[in-house]
């Protein structure tokens, strides 16, 4: 095995220009993957909190007795999809409205009765925050006795899911395309190296070398190109992160909240190694001994 490593590293040095070119190509490709992961990770962090803010307003019929309100409350509490419930009485609703209107609350002057309905503000569990579940839950609650109407932001629930799904799909497409590109780059490089060492390979075969013995240095070389490309991509991604959070955030403060996924430091070089080895393995193919 040490011989295979020795041959691989000698070849990496001897063919340094073609290898450097491959490392830079793999590095920049992996950088694009990193930026996609970086974007996805931060979007996940942001959208991850959105369901917690999603609430459903359940308006009660006017003049319900205290006992009836209690019945509604206990029925709602038993539901598996409810995360949080808050009762807002008619008076509290009016108080909130006045606070919201602030300077223009004079428009409420002259009202003899409180026109607002008592309500429950209901927060759903994270898994139920999607358009289909929210519509089903709202429909069920609407049929309950004492309920006047149910309001929820259908568009928001749909938008959250659509945004997440779209970003995930686009990221997957970008990842697969770039990964294919990395495999192709290492494939081409190793194919060239393989042809340059054709004579050496023929000699190895005549001396009784097995396919594994001949292949090993090429796989190591492909893996090393992937690893170095991965390290380069990680350095590039980290430099990008520093530039965005420390420099650009002076102009756009929200960028300060961006987080660098720590797993990338290991995942990226590892991805490089795997893709590099796959590219090399395809390049060598089946050896005729």
């Amino acid at each position, binding site marked *: 095995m040490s011989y295979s490593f020795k041959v691989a590293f000698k070849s990496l040095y001897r063919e340094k220009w073609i290898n450097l070119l491959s490392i830079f190509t793999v590095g920049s490709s992996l950088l694009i993957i990193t930026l996609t992961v970086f974007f996805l990770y931060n979007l996940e962090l942001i959208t991850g909190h959105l369901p917690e803010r999603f609430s459903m307003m359940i308006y009660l019929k006017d003049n319900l007795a205290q006992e009836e309100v209690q019945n509604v409350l206990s029925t709602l509490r038993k539901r598996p999809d409810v995360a949080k419930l808050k009762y807002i009485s008619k008076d509290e609703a009016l108080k909130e409205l006045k606070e919201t209107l602030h300077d223009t609350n004079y428009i409420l002057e002259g009202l003899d009765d409180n026109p607002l309905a008592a309500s429950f503000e209901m927060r759903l569990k994270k898994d139920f925050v999607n358009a289909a579940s929210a519509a089903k839950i709202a429909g069920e609650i609407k049929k309950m006795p004492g309920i006047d109407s149910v309001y929820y932001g259908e568009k928001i629930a749909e938008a959250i899911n659509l945004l997440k799904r779209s970003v995930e799909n686009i990221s997957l497409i970008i990842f697969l395309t770039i990964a294919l590109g990395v495999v192709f780059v290492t494939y081409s490089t190793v194919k060239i190296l393989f042809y340059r060492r054709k004579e*050496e390979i023929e000699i190895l075969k*005549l*001396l*009784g070398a097995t396919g594994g013995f001949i292949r090993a240095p090429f796989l190591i070389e492909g893996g090393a190109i992937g690893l170095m490309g991965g390290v380069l991509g990680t350095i590039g991604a980290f430099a990008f992160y520093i530039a965005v959070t420390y420099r650009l955030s002076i102009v756009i403060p929200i960028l300060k909240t961006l987080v660098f996924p720590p797993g990338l430091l290991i995942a990226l070089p590892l991805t490089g190694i795997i893709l590099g080895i796959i590219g090399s393995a395809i390049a060598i193919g089946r050896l005729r001994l």
Partner: protein
Amino acid sequence: MIIFQNVSKYYDFHTVLRNINISIQKGEMAFLTGPSGAGKSTLLKLMYMAEIPDEGNILIEDLDIGSMKMSQIPLLRRNIGVVFQDFKLIRNLNIFDNVALALRIRGVAEKETKALTSEALKKVNLRHLADSYPKSLSGGEQQRISIARAIVAEPLVLLADEPTGNLDPGTALDIIRLFRDLNSQGTTIMIATHNRELFRGTGKRVLKLDGGSLVGEELG
């Protein structure tokens, strides 16, 4: 043991070897002679499966080449040491690594590889060139390196294709002496040469090849 049974080899419509029958006993040393183009190199190539016979069977140390699977070829070649006519040294490796390659392919431990390689280089009087690269060596030196690589793993069978073609008469006789030493230790050896001086007075079997056919046999 090497056995050829009715072996023929054709290139396109040209017959290179015709109905060859040979039996070399285990531990025997034999010479194969004949003019250029007689088929000597092809006959050797058939033994390490660089060429496949079109007709007949070949047995090398109980291995039937005809029924051999592709995956068994490396095993066969690891049992055979070959001195190639064109040396087949790897340009990017130094002399030491070129010779050591035969052991590394066989998975010999590195410490043992170093000792055996030094020993083999000593046998061909080229230990001082261990760090040199093939292109800086003369034809004769490259040939001796090729010999060192063929003998370093102490193969069961040693095949040599014109092993003294680039050597002066004195060095050539040294190499033949080296082969005879190996033979006395039990290695089966077959040497293809058109140089009659190499086998004269050896008392070894000489097989005569001409136009692809075995035309005679004598003692050297």
